[in-house]
């Protein structure tokens, strides 16, 4: 039987890449997002192109009822949920977030709290063995940068959570993958200064799906960011603080 895959934050470009890669291998798919009309169009696209079952489900991360959401997904999937991919993300302008605490709360809620809530709600309900949880984090969580560390803090938090979740769920035969994309060519990065080596979101989606299938705990995508971030993480604190990265 084909895999049942739930993608949260389904309207982002990376999520679309993930969904297309999953549909290509024949998954049954639930697309969850706040903008329901967009999710319906994306589900129609998967169905028309790949002849897979695809459903749109409304989800509001700021008023999340994780158990009700799992119930809804489970009903649509006939009880078989094999994959959860969390693609939700919120990045406020650092300067605005410094002045506006509600933006900080929103950042943490979308990037960290909602991820924890969904992972905890889904893990006991997934079909095992072979279940996979993937969360799109960011290389911004590997080290804090003056220009983007409020966003980075939420991503560092989710990285630490996933680092513990993986071994915790090992006995239940659920693999956990933290996905750390570098710069991806999406609406989030469109027109931002200082972008380089920008990756195509469909390529990123494929590498996320293959990394999750291989059960990798951490996927850098594109792959060369593993090396870039290894170097950056190795820079001693006193030197790092003097660099303007």
């Amino acid at each position, binding site marked *: 039987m084909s895999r049942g895959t739930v993608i949260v934050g389904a309207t982002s470009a990376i999520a679309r890449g993930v969904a297309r890669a999953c549909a290509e291998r024949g998954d049954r798919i639930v697309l969850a997002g706040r*903008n329901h009309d*967009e999710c319906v*169009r994306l589900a129609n*696209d998967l169905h*028309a*192109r790949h002849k897979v079952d695809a459903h749109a489900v409304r989800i509001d991360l700021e008023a999340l009822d994780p158990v009700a959401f799992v119930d809804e997904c489970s009903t649509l999937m006939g009880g078989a949920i094999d994959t959860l991919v969390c693609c939700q993300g919120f990045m406020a302008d650092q300067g605005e977030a410094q002045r506006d605490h509600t933006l900080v709360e929103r950042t943490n809620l979308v990037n960290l709290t909602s991820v924890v809530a969904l992972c905890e709600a889904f893990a006991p309900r997934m079909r095992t063995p072979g279940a996979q949880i993937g969360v799109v984090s960011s290389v911004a969580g590997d080290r804090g940068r003056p220009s983007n560390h409020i966003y980075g803090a939420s991503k560092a938090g989710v990285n630490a959570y996933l680092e513990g979740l993986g071994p915790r769920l090992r006995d239940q035969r659920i693999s956990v993958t933290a996905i750390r994309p570098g710069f991806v060519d999406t*609406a989030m990065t469109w027109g*931002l200064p200082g972008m380089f080596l920008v990756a195509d979101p469909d390529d990123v989606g494929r590498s996320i799906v293959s990394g999750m299938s291989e059960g990798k705990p951490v996927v850098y995508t594109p792959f060369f960011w593993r090396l870039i971030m290894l170097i950056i993480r190795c820079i001693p604190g006193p030197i790092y603080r003097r660099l303007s990265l």
Partner: protein
Amino acid sequence: MPRYKDESLACWGNHPRHDCSSARPESWRALDDALNDDAHATRIARGLGRSYGDAALNKDGAVVRTERLDRVLDFDERTGVLHAEAGLALKDVNRSFLPRGWFPGVTPGSAYVTLGGAIAANVHGKNHHAEGAFDAWTDAIELLLPTNNAEWEPRWVSRDDDPELFHATLGGMGLTGVVRRASVRMKPVPSAHIDARYQKAPNLDAALEGFAGDYAHMPYSVAWIDCLATGGDAGRSVLIGGDHAPVDALPSVLRAEPLKLEPPKRRRVPFNFPGAALNPLSVRAFNALYYRSPRPERRIEPAHEFFYPLDAILEWNRIYGKKGFQQYQVVIPFERGAQGVRTLLDRSAKAKAASFLAVRKAMGPESEGPLSFPMPGWTLALDLKQTTRLDALLADLDAIAIEFGGRRYLAKDASLTREHFRAMYPRLDEFMSVRTRVDPHGALSSSLSRRLGLDP
């Protein structure tokens, strides 16, 4: 607020290059935001930028790139009606639906063309003489139109519902509204392969004769013509014809899965060639080689090799160097068509303008759109490297084309003058009355529309 990126943009010919401010919406809401944004006075939609000239450029204005709005919203397997967003590329249509036995009714020579672009240019293909242009396969278009209160409103148009706007949109170069989605009909095909025929014609007369004979009856036909050959060889051509291969025409290895498609192999031109790489000598040598190269008279080939030979070389436009090139495409009515084509070829040969194999084919009936390009006649397309003298040569060619009752394809154009344009498109007033009705304040505008005087 939509975020804009300042980009120096060009289309496929890499000439001209203009500074534009571009948005790339990924949702309908973001598309609305980009259109409603009053930071820019004008905007034009752009798909994959495969028109050649300045149609998808907006100097110092906004460009709305539709490539991320590429969803197939519905496909009816019984009727072949495809309902999709404007940014859907034909290569993706083929990837999904050719293995299910459906092919676009009309496809241009590149599959890197979006639905919205195919509508805006009313593209034609190798089957124009038999099956018409893109409009013949388009049922309905949803346009976003400017209103008085700066909000853009969606409206579906079709042959029954505002036919004037529908026809003006097909070939209207994006100036009659922003295409959000469309319904187009596909055609059923028995296999993913083409039964293709090739025939050498040693000179122009032989080529025209071949076209009038066997090749007139083939659903797809085109000729590649060596326009640098002179004397007795002038106009020597390779005639190419074909049709979708029925299953029993396929070699036995392909018969089990006639619709199965090997993914096309692609190579990339890694950088802009130096300006001197293409000169009359090297092009002449290439053309002679192409003409002489042995090829079977008949072969079964994958559809993408037949329809999109140049798509196999990604960014092939780089061989023309940084300054780019212009493709000059005209159609000359049959009546004096042979003479018209000959005169055009003579004039370009005299200017020593080196074109790789030019393309020629016979076109069928005219579309209803006032700015639509195709009409019954011979169409000729030359790729010419951009030089300081090129625009003057093209103006000479335009004058010749007008003398023979011909006109130029706006999707390839970057140099036409307003006077020549008016002489070529006598139904311009009809187009302008629709344009003024739906966009009275010129919220839509492009580098092309300002050059040709197409703004209200």
